[in-house]
C-alpha cells in the first residue's frame, strides 16, 4: 500500500496558502469580520485539525465545522434503542467502532458490552452477515450508520442476505442524507456562512448535482473536496475565489474520484432497499424532513425496527443539560466556546456527541489543540 504523498507536498501547500492569504485580503476579510467556510464532512474536520491547517490559514478565514459526522448527529433516543436491542437475549449487536462510545441516556454500547451484552465491532456490514452465517442460532443485528458513503454497502448486504435466505440478520437503520441539514442551516436567519467545502466520499455516490440548491437558491459557493491536505487547501482557495468574484457555483475539486452524476449503481440499490422517512431526528438540529432512510416493506424481514417492534420515535430522549452540540454544529459557537468544553465534556467522559467520534468537531479540536490555545471569544 502506498498513499498519495504528492497531495501532502509542503512546497505546493505553501504556494496555495499564499494564494489563500491574498484572496482573503482581496475579499477584505479580517479577524473581526472573517470569511466563514463550513466544511460539511467530519473527515474534513479531522484533516483540518490533524494537519494543523486551522493554524496555517490567515486570521480572516474561519472554519465552521458542519454536521457531517454521522456518529455525532445520532440522537440519544436511537443510541438508547441500540442499547435495548443489544441487551436482548440471543442478540449479537454489531457496529462500526466509533459508535461504541456515543452516550445515550442508558449509557453507551461500550458500557452495555461491559455489562454483558454481546456487542462486536465490525469493519463492514458484510462482516456482520458473515457472523449471521456462522452463528445461525443467534440474532445478528447490524447498526446501520452513516451518510450516503456507507448507505449503499448496507443496502447491498441486505440484498445479499435476502438472496441467500439468511433469516437471522437484521439492520437497525439510521442512515441519513447529507443535503437536508444543509437546507436547514441555510434557512436559519442567524446563519453566518459564506461558503461550503462539500464532502468527497458522499459525493462519490450522489454526485455533485444535489448541491445545486446551495448555489442557486441560497447564492453560496460550494466546492466538493478530497481529503488530503492539498485537496482541502485548493478547495478553500476555490471557494474564496468564488466569493471574491461574486460567483455561487457547485465546483468539483475531487474530480479524480467524484463523477458529476455520482454512482448510479449504488443509488439504484439504495432506492431499491430504502425509502425516505417522513422525518428523522438529528442531534443538535432536531427533526429534519426526509433526512433519514428506513428499510422498504419488500425487505421488512431484514429490518430490526420491525423485528424487535421498536419503530421510529417510540421514545424520545432530550440531550443532557448544558450540552451545546447544536450551537456548535450550526456554527454559532466554536467548540472551545461551549461552557462544557474540556471540563464537563472530554473525550474520556463525553457529554455531547461532538466529543465522541474523532471526526467530531469538539473531539478533533480537543485532541489536536484547540482547547489549549483558545482564540479570543466573540
Amino acid at each position, binding site marked *: 500500500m502506498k498513499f498519495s504523498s504528492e497531495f501532502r507536498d509542503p512546497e505546493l501547500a505553501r504556494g496555495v496558502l499564499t494564494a489563500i492569504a491574498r484572496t482573503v485580503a482581496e475579499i477584505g476579510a479580517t479577524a473581526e469580520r472573517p470569511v466563514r467556510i463550513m466544511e460539511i464532512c467530519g473527515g474534513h474536520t479531522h484533516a483540518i485539525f490533524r494537519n494543523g491547517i486551522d493554524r496555517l490559514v490567515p486570521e480572516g478565514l474561519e472554519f465552521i465545522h458542519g454536521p457531517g459526522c454521522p456518529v455525532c448527529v445520532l440522537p440519544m433516543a436511537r443510541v438508547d434503542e441500540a442499547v435495548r436491542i443489544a441487551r436482548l437475549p440471543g442478540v449479537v449487536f454489531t457496529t462500526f467502532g466509533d459508535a*461504541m462510545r456515543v452516550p445515550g441516556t442508558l449509557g453507551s454500547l461500550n458500557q452495555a458490552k461491559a455489562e454483558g451484552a454481546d456487542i462486536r465491532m465490525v469493519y463492514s456490514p458484510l462482516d456482520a452477515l458473515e457472523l449471521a452465517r456462522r452463528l445461525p442460532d443467534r440474532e445478528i443485528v447490524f447498526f446501520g450508520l452513516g451518510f450516503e458513503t456507507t448507505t449503499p454497502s448496507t443496502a447491498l448486504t441486505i440484498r445479499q442476505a435476502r438472496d441467500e435466505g439468511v433469516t437471522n440478520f437484521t439492520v437497525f437503520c439510521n442512515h441519513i442524507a447529507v443535503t437536508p441539514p444543509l437546507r436547514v442551516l441555510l434557512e436559519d436567519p442567524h446563519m453566518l456562512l459564506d461558503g461550503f467545502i462539500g464532502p468527497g466520499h458522499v459525493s462519490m455516490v450522489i454526485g455533485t448535482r444535489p448541491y445545486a440548491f446551495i448555489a442557486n437558491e441560497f447564492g453560496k459557493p460550494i466546492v466538493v473536496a478530497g481529503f488530503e491536505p492539498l485537496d482541502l487547501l485548493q478547495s478553500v482557495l476555490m471557494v474564496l475565489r468564488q466569493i471574491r468574484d461574486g460567483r455561487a457555483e457547485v465546483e468539483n475539486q475531487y474530480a479524480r474520484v467524484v463523477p458529476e452524476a455520482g454512482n448510479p449503481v449504488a443509488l439504484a440499490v439504495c432506492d431499491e432497499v430504502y425509502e425516505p422517512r417522513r422525518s428523522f431526528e438529528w442531534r443538535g438540529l432536531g427533526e429534519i424532513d426526509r433526512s433519514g432512510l428506513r428499510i422498504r416493506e419488500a425487505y421488512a424481514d431484514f429490518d430490526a425496527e420491525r423485528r424487535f417492534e421498536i419503530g421510529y420515535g417510540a421514545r424520545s430522549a432530550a440531550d443532557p443539560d448544558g450540552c451545546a452540540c447544536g450551537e456548535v454544529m450550526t456554527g454559532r459557537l466554536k467548540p472551545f466556546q461551549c461552557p462544557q468544553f474540556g471540563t464537563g465534556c472530554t473525550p474520556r467522559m463525553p457529554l455531547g456527541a461532538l466529543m465522541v467520534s474523532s471526526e467530531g468537531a469538539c473531539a478533533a479540536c480537543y485532541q489536536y489543540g484547540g482547547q489549549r490555545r483558545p482564540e479570543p471569544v466573540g
Partner: protein
Amino acid sequence: MRDLIDEIFVTAFEPAEMEDQARLADEAMRAAGARLAFTTDSFVVSPLEFPGGDIGTLAVNGTVNDLAVGGARPLWLSAAFILEEGFEIVRLRRIARSMARAAAAAGVAIVTGDTKVVGRGSADGLFVTTSGIGVIPPGRELGEVHVRPGDVAIVSGVLGDHGAAILVARGDMALSVDLESDCQPLNGLMDAVLAAVPEVRAARDATRGGLAAVLNEVAGAARCGVVIDEAALPLRDEVTGLCEILGLDPLYLANEGTLVLFVPPGRAAAALDAMRATEAGRGAVAVGRAVADHPGMVVMRTALGGERIVDMLVGDQLPRIC
C-alpha cells in the same frame, strides 16, 4: 495433564534446579552501589500467534525491555501461565519453545514459573505473566525527570509495526498487508548506546499507547515540552496506508521493540551512530527535542508546516466509519 504441562515448561526452559524457588547469584550484584531492578507485566493478546512473534515472545521481550530501559542488565525471569481448559498442548509447546528462544536471544534465564488451568470461558486461551530481575550498574541513573529542554528525542526504528501487524493478524479486515511485529529485546541496543553515550537521560520502550504516550509521559515527568517533526517520523508505507484506511494514528500504535531515548544535544550524533551499528537500532533517527515552552505538552510540526498537539490517547483507537 498437570505433569504434561509441567514437562512442557521444564523441557523448554531447563531450569537449573527443581525447587519451588529460584536461588540466584550474579557477580554484578556485588559491585558497590549496584542496584537490583525488579518488574512485572501481564500479557494478553489476540491472536496469540502473529507474524513476528507470539504471546510468549511478547512476555519475554516485554519484561526484558522494561528492565533494559531503566538501565538494568536483565538476568532472570519468572513466567506464570493461566490456561483455558482445552487449550491445545501442541500450541502451548510451540509458545513455550519460542519463549525459550526469546530468552536465549535476550541472554536471560527463565528460572521459575507457575501454571493454572481455569474452566472454559474463564480465560481467553492463554494469559502470561512474567517478572524480571536485573542489575543496574553503579552510577547509572536513567529517568524521565532528568530530561532537559534542548535534549534530542531519538527513536530506534520504524513505528507502529507491532500494532499494525496485530490488527491485520486479527483478520477482521479483508486486508492483506505484509507486516511483522517488531517484537525484540532491547538490552543489546541499550548496552551499545550506553557504552558510547553514558549521558543518556532517559530511555523508554514505546509499547501500549505508542510514541505519543511515551513523549507525553516524559513531558509530564520532566515538566518540559516536547516538539516532534512529522516529516522525521520513521513509518513504513504499509503502516501509514493501513492507518489512512482505518482512520488510525500511527503515533498511538504499540511497538514491542522500539526504543525512545532522550540525550543531551551534543551527544545525539554519537548516540545515533552507536544505535545504528546494532541490528535493533539500524533505523535510529532523531524525531524531535525537549523544549522549555508548553511544559507537559507534546506538539507536532506537521509535514505541511502546521502544528498540532499530540495528546494521550483516551481508551482504544476506534476505526472510523468512513
